[in-house]
């Protein structure tokens, strides 16, 4: 990621992750916002409501009684042609679950920030990716940011990606609870309103269709005469997911010209070109893993990190491309799928790992406990040493459980 500033008009701000997302929503000139408070997302919508109160953002903020209603509200607003936004976390996201599917299959574009958090019990507000990954089959485009700047950029680009005629699917922008949401990472580069306006014009309310009083008499999602229509609808969603890969690349390309910040687009590979071992992860802790990779490199271990930026559409080509020629792949999951291979990311990736390549899925940070760069280094070193010593290794899940200090 290059950091040269191509536009002098960018201003530098010190904002926590949640406030950075709110800033992006303001710059996108969103028309309708609806959300229900839940930690650690609440700062986003609190800030947005302040912006509306002060007149900085001309939007309707709809107060609702639940997350189900919040999503239904923005979904309805988007079907009416508005540019809409909501945000949630954990239990709130699960309360939206039915609506997530309706919104995605209705093909209306809008954006939701998901500030990742553990799902109870036990009651827990800390960071885990299980909530975001539980929506991966619903038809949403799902991104996961590594830092506050990327959370900002991912939110702003999400509108452009979602509204593209070739995509027309809602976009979920994931950011790690507290680690990003409540942490200020100076400096944050924010493009000017004029630049964003030129790059992101108002949404065309006629695409894909508009449901409005006095408008065209249409019903969305009526009981079809033949169930095959349903299968066709899903097939078209699948095709749009495939197109989204191209659109995401195009949008980030334009965005790089606007801001000077170049991303992946679907993945980013750190010190991979001469690597023999590949670590895979997503989200904020990727920074700690990169740090561990640097230190392992100093000790002569040929390892790189493939950071997943978008889980949906899944970057299949990138993953298979980078795994090709590797001796071993180690996947870090901050999420868990009960009764399956272990971590969600490990399960998704393992299908693309050839049988002659060593593999290990590591479950760490479940429940939000902190995993340090030292710990990542030790886990990766142990994996490489084991492969070098014993040859082929296949470990579907390794539970990394630190000693509990009372």
């Amino acid at each position, binding site marked *: 990621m290059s950091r040269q500033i191509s536009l002098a008009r960018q201003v530098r701000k010190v904002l926590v992750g949640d406030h950075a997302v709110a800033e992006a929503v303001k710059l996108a000139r969103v028309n309708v916002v609806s959300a229900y408070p839940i930690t650690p997302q609440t700062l986003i919508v609190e800030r947005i409501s302040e912006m509306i109160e002060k007149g900085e953002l001309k939007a309707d903020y709809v107060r609702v009684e639940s997350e189900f209603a919040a999503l239904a509200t923005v979904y309805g607003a988007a079907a009416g042609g508005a540019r809409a936004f909501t945000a949630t976390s954990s239990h709130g996201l699960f309360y939206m679950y039915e609506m997530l599917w309706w919104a995605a299959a209705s*093909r209306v574009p809008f954006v939701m920030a998901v500030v990742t958090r553990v799902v109870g019990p036990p009651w827990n507000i800390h960071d885990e990716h299980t909530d975001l990954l539980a929506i991966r089959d619903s038809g949403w485009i799902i991104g996961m940011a590594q830092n506050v700047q990327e959370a900002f950029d991912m939110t702003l680009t999400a509108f452009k990606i979602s509204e593209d005629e*070739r995509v027309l699917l809602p976009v979920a922008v994931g950011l790690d609870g507290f680690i990003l949401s409540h942490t200020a990472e100076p400096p944050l580069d924010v493009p000017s309103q004029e630049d964003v306006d030129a790059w992101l014009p108002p949404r065309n309310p006629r*695409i*894909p*269709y508009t449901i409005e009083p006095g408008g*065209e008499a249409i019903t969305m999602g009526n009981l*079809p*005469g033949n169930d095959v*229509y349903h299968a066709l609808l899903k097939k*078209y969603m699948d095709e749009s997911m495939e197109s989204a890969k191209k659109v995401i690349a195009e949008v980030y390309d334009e965005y790089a010209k606007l801001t000077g910040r170049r991303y992946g687009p679907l993945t980013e590979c750190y010190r991979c070109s001469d690597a023999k071992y590949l670590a895979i992860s997503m989200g904020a802790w990727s920074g700690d893993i990169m740090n561990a990779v640097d230190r392992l490199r100093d000790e002569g271990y040929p390892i790189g990190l493939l950071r997943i930026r978008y889980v949906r559409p899944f970057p299949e080509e990138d993953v298979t491309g980078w795994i090709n020629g590797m001796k071993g792949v180690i996947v870090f999951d901050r999420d868990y799928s009960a009764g399956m291979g272990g971590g969600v990311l490990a399960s998704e990736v393992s299908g693309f790992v050839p049988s002659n390549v060593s593999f290990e899925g590591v479950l760490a940070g479940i429940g939000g406990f902190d995993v340090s760069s030292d710990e990542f280094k030790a886990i990766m070193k142990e994996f490489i040493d084991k492969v070098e010593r014993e040859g082929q290794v296949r470990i579907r899940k390794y539970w990394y459980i630190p000693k509990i200090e009372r």
Partner: protein
Amino acid sequence: MSVAEKLRGGLLLSTPAEGAGGRTGTWRVYRPVINYSKCTKCGICWLYCLRMLLSGLRIRTSGLTMTIARAVEYARMFALLRLLTWLRRGGWCE
């Protein structure tokens, strides 16, 4: 064909048209009439028809006669039906 175009034509969006039941918009303007030459005085019409429930008195005076026992039985069912309707609408919370 664009995504928006694909959504039309039964896939996701539907437009108003005559349904399997034909034109149904005029169904409610007809007034139920009792054919007294066929009437066995069972009283089932009185039980089921909303219009007759509302004007049971008028039906009785217009020639429908029942045994007292049957009238009591129907009155009980009538009360139950009204109670269920009232509960379904939310009871006291209405």
